[in-house]
Each structure stands twice: as C-alpha cells, then as structure tokens.
C-alpha cells in the first residue's frame, strides 16, 4: 500500500497500468456477456430470468469489495493521515455507489417475475439499501467542507461506523427469514452451483473488479491533478496579495 502512497509514483504506475486494465476489462466484459447471455443454460425453474443473476450478483460483490476498500482507506487516513488515502476513498465511492445501484435495480427486475414484487422490506434488501445510503452519505460528507481534510475525516468516521453493515448484509440471509436465496458460491463446503453458472459469475465479477480498478485509477489521477491546480491557484493568489501590499507599502513621494 505504502509503495503507491506517493502521488508522483502513483501517476507513473497507473499510467503504465491503465492501457492494460482497459483492455482486460473490455475482454472480460465481452467474454462474460457471451457466457451469461448465450452459453449458460436457462434455469430449470426460473428460465431465462435467471440471467439477471450474472449482473446482479457480481455487482453486489463489487459493491461490497469497494466498501471494504473505503473502510481500509478511511482507517489509514485517520491513523496515518495519508492524503492519498482520503483521495483513494473519495474516488472509489461513486463507483461503489454505482454498483450498489445496479445491484438494487437488477434485483428489483428479477424480484418482480420471481417473487411477484419489485421490493420487499426484508433484511437482505434493506441492508443493501442502507449500503447505498452509506455511499451517498460518505460522498456528501467528503464534499461538504471548504477545507477538504475536514470533510475527509468526517466521511472516514462514517465509513468506519458503516462497516457494521457489511456482516449484516453477508449474514442477513441466515439470520432472518427472507425471500432472498442464501449464499451459493461463498459458503462452507464450496460453491453449490454448476460450473456453467459459476463461470459467467466469475468472469463478470472479474470484469466488474477490473472495471472498478481502471475507473478508480483515472479518478485518483484526476484528483491528484486537481490538487496540483489548487496549489498553483493558491500560490498565485498569495503572490497577488504580496504584490498589492508591496505597492501599498512603497513610500509615496
């Protein structure tokens, strides 16, 4: 982590990594879509509606993964006061919110034909909705202060408190009665689903993860440039003030 914590080193390494990440993301997305829409057989009970799973589940995994990253970034921001950790967390959040939104909407589109309802207030759905609001709250706090480090600190505290929601999401299907099906991939005893369904899930999850990394890197690069711009603008304002004062203080004859 600390190897990447130097802005100029990050700029160099991400510039080298981004063309690769972009290519890998495009290839994985293409392969994942073919596997999900063409190769995978329709479910014996749910028919072709089960193809929504290949977007819904990887989006949920990515949304959780990104939140875990934000928790780690927030902890290192609060403990070590790393300015890059603030940027890393803040720039990950919109992407994580996007995946959470995809998870909620695709879940709704899957729930209507299978459960007969767009939405039910059960523990799994509600805790993922809370995850979405945590993302929005984190972003609102991070951008709410003129002084960026104050916003970053408040947002980091919210992210850490919100981490309690992660195990609730994971175990909600075991702790409470729910329409939502229990875990069938990350469970004790290994995945319980067939390879023809596991393959598209895995490839789409890899595609979403590499998509996240690519966009995250672009966003961090943008934030580093934005900070350079702010430093130059502040410096110019300072120069101007000194100039003006210099003129005012000059002896008049």
């Amino acid at each position, binding site marked *: 982590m600390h190897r990447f914590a130097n802005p100029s080193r990050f700029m160099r390494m991400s510039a080298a990594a981004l063309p690769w990440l972009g290519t890998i993301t495009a290839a994985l997305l293409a392969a994942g879509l073919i596997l999900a*829409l*063409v*190769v995978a*057989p*329709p479910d014996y009970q749910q*028919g*072709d*509606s089960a*193809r*929504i799973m290949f*977007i*819904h589940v990887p*989006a949920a995994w990515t949304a959780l993964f990104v939140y875990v990253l934000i928790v780690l970034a927030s902890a290192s921001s609060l403990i070590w006061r790393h300015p890059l950790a603030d940027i890393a967390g803040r720039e990950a959040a*919109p*992407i994580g919110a*996007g995946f959470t*939104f*995809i998870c909620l*909407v*695709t879940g709704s*589109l*899957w729930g*209507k*034909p299978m459960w007969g309802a767009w939405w039910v207030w059960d523990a799994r759905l509600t805790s993922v909705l809370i995850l979405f609001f945590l993302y929005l709250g984190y972003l609102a706090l991070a951008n709410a202060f003129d002084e960026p480090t104050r916003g970053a600190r408040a947002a980091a505290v919210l992210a850490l408190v919100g981490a309690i929601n992660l195990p609730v999401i994971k175990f909600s299907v075991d702790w409470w009665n729910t329409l939502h099906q229990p875990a069938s991939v990350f469970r004790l005893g290994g995945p319980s689903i067939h390879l023809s369904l596991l393959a598209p899930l895995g490839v789409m999850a890899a595609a979403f993860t590499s*998509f996240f990394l*690519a*966009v995250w890197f*672009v*966003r961090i*690069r*943008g934030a580093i*440039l*934005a900070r*350079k*711009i702010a430093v*130059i*603008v502040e410096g*110019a304002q300072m120069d101007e003030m000194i100039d003006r004062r210099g003129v005012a203080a000059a002896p008049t004859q």
Partner: protein
Amino acid sequence: MMETLPNFLAMGGYASFVWPAYAVAAIVLAGVSLHSLAAYRRCQRELARLQQVRSRRGSAA
C-alpha cells in the same frame, strides 16, 4: 443456446426484465467511466494552461 435471433431476444418470455437489467448496468457503467474520463481530461487541460501562464510570467520577470 440461441437458435434464432427473435428467440434469443424474447429471453423465454422474460425479455422485459432481462434486457432492462443489462441496460441499466451498461448505462451506469458507461456514465461513471465517461464522467470520470471527462473530469480527468478537464484537469489535465487546466493544469497545462496554468503551467503555461506561470512559465510565461516566470520568463517575463
């Protein structure tokens, strides 16, 4: 497996749920990535402009 295109598009009668799900994902991901790229390019241009202004001032002084 798909036999014919209309058959494939029909998604076994679930077309009105499957395709919107994929479309929402595509729109959100395209939106996030394009917005992020545009913001990055904007910063790049602005920084280049400021550095040019500064170097001009530096050489003028």
